């Protein structure tokens, strides 16, 4: 692949002629020039940690992509939801589970590892370790910077295809801005995870409320994308609508309680239940008049709906108490994988509909 687009700013990059750069200890990009005395293996080792810029280094708004980014099929996944919907905790729990090397994942024939080692290490240090290791509540996401928060390389060993995953977790207040030139990932993201804050939706059936402004902004901006002829009435993006913090509503509705109760590792990788879960989530939101929150499921070409809890309970004084665990956080991500071709899409079919 000789031409790619930056997943952050969508600038076109003529990939092969773009020279490698390294990032120095003080965070500044410098040209990486091969020392003719070093061996090929050492040079390749340097390239693994190298980057290619999407523009002229030193100019504002130029981004660094992993040197081998273009070798893989790019998949950008964006988290959508208003401030404190639970995006950051959910994504940290998702990535933690995805990178956990849990034996059950081997059944999916997925190999997962960092694509950008520096970015991934930063993400682990700032999000996964505090949340999972120290059970600390994560801070709000600052609104200033637009870039992907983690980049993973995912290989489907069954078909040998590798994907360059980039995750965008931006501040909710930023996602609500009607006009934000820096937010470009709407135009290229393969999947959006719409995070529903259960504390914001109506508590009983009735007329729908205003919904989540960030959902509206995302769907409006998706309007600009070209739609395939076969699906002109839908946005060409995979949407996973996740009722996050589901632990807060598990005692209000048996449906939620039941789904959280079956959140074992084995069940999480069983994608054939996704459709049934989607129906239940749809029904749950509909019954509460949360029809605005259903728009992504209704308007996106591929969509699934989920209950999930990143912490299995609310925080107390900034930490999560004893029942802390991750419930059903991986399933929405795996559903996205299936909807974007990382996994076989047929995995989402209920058992009775599996191709014979």
């Amino acid at each position, binding site marked *: 692949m000789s031409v790619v687009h930056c997943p952050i700013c969508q600038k076109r990059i003529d990939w092969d002629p773009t020279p490698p750069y390294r990032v120095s200890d003080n*965070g500044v990009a410098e040209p990486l020039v091969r020392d003719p005395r070093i061996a090929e293996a050492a040079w390749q080792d340097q390239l693994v940690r190298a980057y290619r810029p999407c523009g002229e280094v030193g100019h504002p708004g*130029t981004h660094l992509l992993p040197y081998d980014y273009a070798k893989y099929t790019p998949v950008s996944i964006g988290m959508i939801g*208003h401030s404190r919907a639970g995006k950051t905790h959910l994504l940290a729990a998702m990535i933690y589970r995805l990178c956990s090397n849990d034996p059950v994942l081997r059944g999916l024939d997925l190999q997962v590892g960092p694509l950008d080692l520096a970015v991934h290490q930063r993400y682990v240090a700032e999000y996964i370790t505090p949340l999972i290791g120290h059970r600390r509540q994560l801070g709000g996401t600052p609104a200033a910077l637009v*870039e992907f928060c983690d980049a993973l390389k995912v290989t489907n060993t069954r078909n040998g295809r590798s994907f360059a995953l980039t995750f965008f977790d931006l501040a909710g207040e930023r996602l*609500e801005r009607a006009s934000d030139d820096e937010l470009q990932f709407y135009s290229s993201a393969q999947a959006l995870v719409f995070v529903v804050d259960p504390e914001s939706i109506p508590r009983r059936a009735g007329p729908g409320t205003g919904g989540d402004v960030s959902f509206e902004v995302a769907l409006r901006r998706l309007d600009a994308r070209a739609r395939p002829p076969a699906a002109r009435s839908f946005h060409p993006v995979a949407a996973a609508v996740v009722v996050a913090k589901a632990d807060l509503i598990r005692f209000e509705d048996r449906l939620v309680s039941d789904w959280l109760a079956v959140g074992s590792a084995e069940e999480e990788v069983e994608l054939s239940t996704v459709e049934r879960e989607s129906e239940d989530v749809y029904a749950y939101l509909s019954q509460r008049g949360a029809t605005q929150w259903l728009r992504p499921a209704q308007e996106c070409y591929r969509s699934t709906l989920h209950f999930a809890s990143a912490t299995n309970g609310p925080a107390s004084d900034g930490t999560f108490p004893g029942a802390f665990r991750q419930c059903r956080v991986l399933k929405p991500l795996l559903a996205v994988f299936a909807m974007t071709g990382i996994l076989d899409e047929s995995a989402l079919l209920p058992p009775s509909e599996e191709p014979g």
Partner: protein
Amino acid sequence: MNQIAHQIRYCWSPASLLGTRGMGPVESTLPADVLATWDRYLRDHVWAAGTRPGFTFVVRDGVGALLRKVATAAEDGRPGSAAHALLSPELKAADALGLTSWDGWDAPALSVLPWSALAPAADRGLSELRARARALPADRLAALFAQVLHAPGEGFTVIGEPDPLAVTCALGDLIGETPTFASDEASDTGPHLPTAVFLREASFSSTTATRRRIAPAAPLADPALSSFAVAAVDAYAADGMDGIALTRRAKPPADLVETREWVSAAQFAPGVLADVGRLPRLSPTAWQSLAREDALQRVAAAAAAASPAVLARALDERLPEYLLAVIVPAAVAAASGTPGDPALLERLAQFGPIPLDLVAGSLPADVDQLARITHVLLTPRDRRIVLEQAARDLPLTGLIDWIDRQAPADPAGALAMYSALCARAGRASQEDVEALVSRGGLAGAVRQFSESGQQSSIHLVTLLRALPRGALDPDAVAGLAAHVDPVLLHALDTIVTDPSARADIHYQVRLAYYQEHLLHEPTALLPGDGPPGDGSAEPQAPRRRWHGIRRHQPHHNHGKPT
């Protein structure tokens, strides 16, 4: 908004004043429409990077905005941020630095504040901060300053600085303008950042850093900038703003070209600030670096432009002679000005006597000043040379007046001028002679610088003899004799040959004698008795044409001023 300051408070809210969810304005003294505009400017600056308060100062549309942001725990315990902003057109970067220690942050209720209520706090805070800035490790600060100098118009980021506010203050003081700043940020890759940004650590970002990263440990590629930075920081640490006042620019340099011009102009030699007042504080090594013609020319030029106070500081016995040789003339010139500077002259006197060739070109033209300066600084011999030289340019009437006026207080100076007068007396005009006559032939002045009456007489004879032939006509002699001064009469008696004139002289001699001994004149000499007509040696009493002339009491304090 003039003369007042508005306030905005930011924190997480499900519904801010602007109706948004998330981090937004929850309390404000601004009108709603103005608040929306300012929110667009400020919302990217309101997130705290850590637990200690961070400060960000930006300027938009001529209005300064200072934010104080702190990490918080919301009601549900989730870590977040809160920010408090002050906005005012009066708020400049230096004020903002001072207001970082304002005690009104996090006040329970916000109100519009008169700037007059904030200005004292800003001044006080800046003063305290400047004291901290001067105590910063000089080598670290110099390294940072040198790097800022390399591209003075560009923003920069400092990583891991323990006291960002003090460094901002110091860099602003040193370069001539306090920069806009952000004292504690997590990233410096975003847009709209202020000039100086401080990061706790170099964090990785997928967005390339476009700002310069400067660090105390970074190698300095430019020795010229480095040596200047070291010298400037040393001066700043030692004397604060006074230490760099003479070398500081009114405006910071815009680019490297201007920086180099400044660095060159602000140093006598590499590492030596162009401030003569600081020369005594330098090391002998630094003094040695000035022992070059070009450096000494710069010192001389700076000294010529320096104030008397600076020059007084510069005069130090420890300075090598080659430096004193360029400073002293400038100090003499400054001390010779109008009005002169007594403190500087007093300081100069401690270096006296000063060789004439060192100060010859710096002496004042005004004779009074010249006499005063030379009296303090020169040897009597040199002084006489200088004064005689100066006297050549004076009109004789002025010279006569000066001698008559100054002799009591400055007999040596008067003697020098008198010598010049004698030398020029051959060209005296009638007017000059009349001036001389009216001052009693300067007999009183001559007595001030003479050791005895005999010597006074000799001086007077010298002058009177030097007058043009015929200048001492009978009227002139009578006028002089009427002063009844014994030494003058003696001198006249020595040189006047005209019998009639001599009769007048002798008459006055007699009168002087009687007056000296409290005797009345003999009756025969009284008016109306007629002169002796026997042709004896006694002269006729002259007609009293000069009775109106005041008669001086004769003097007998030969020599010194009374």
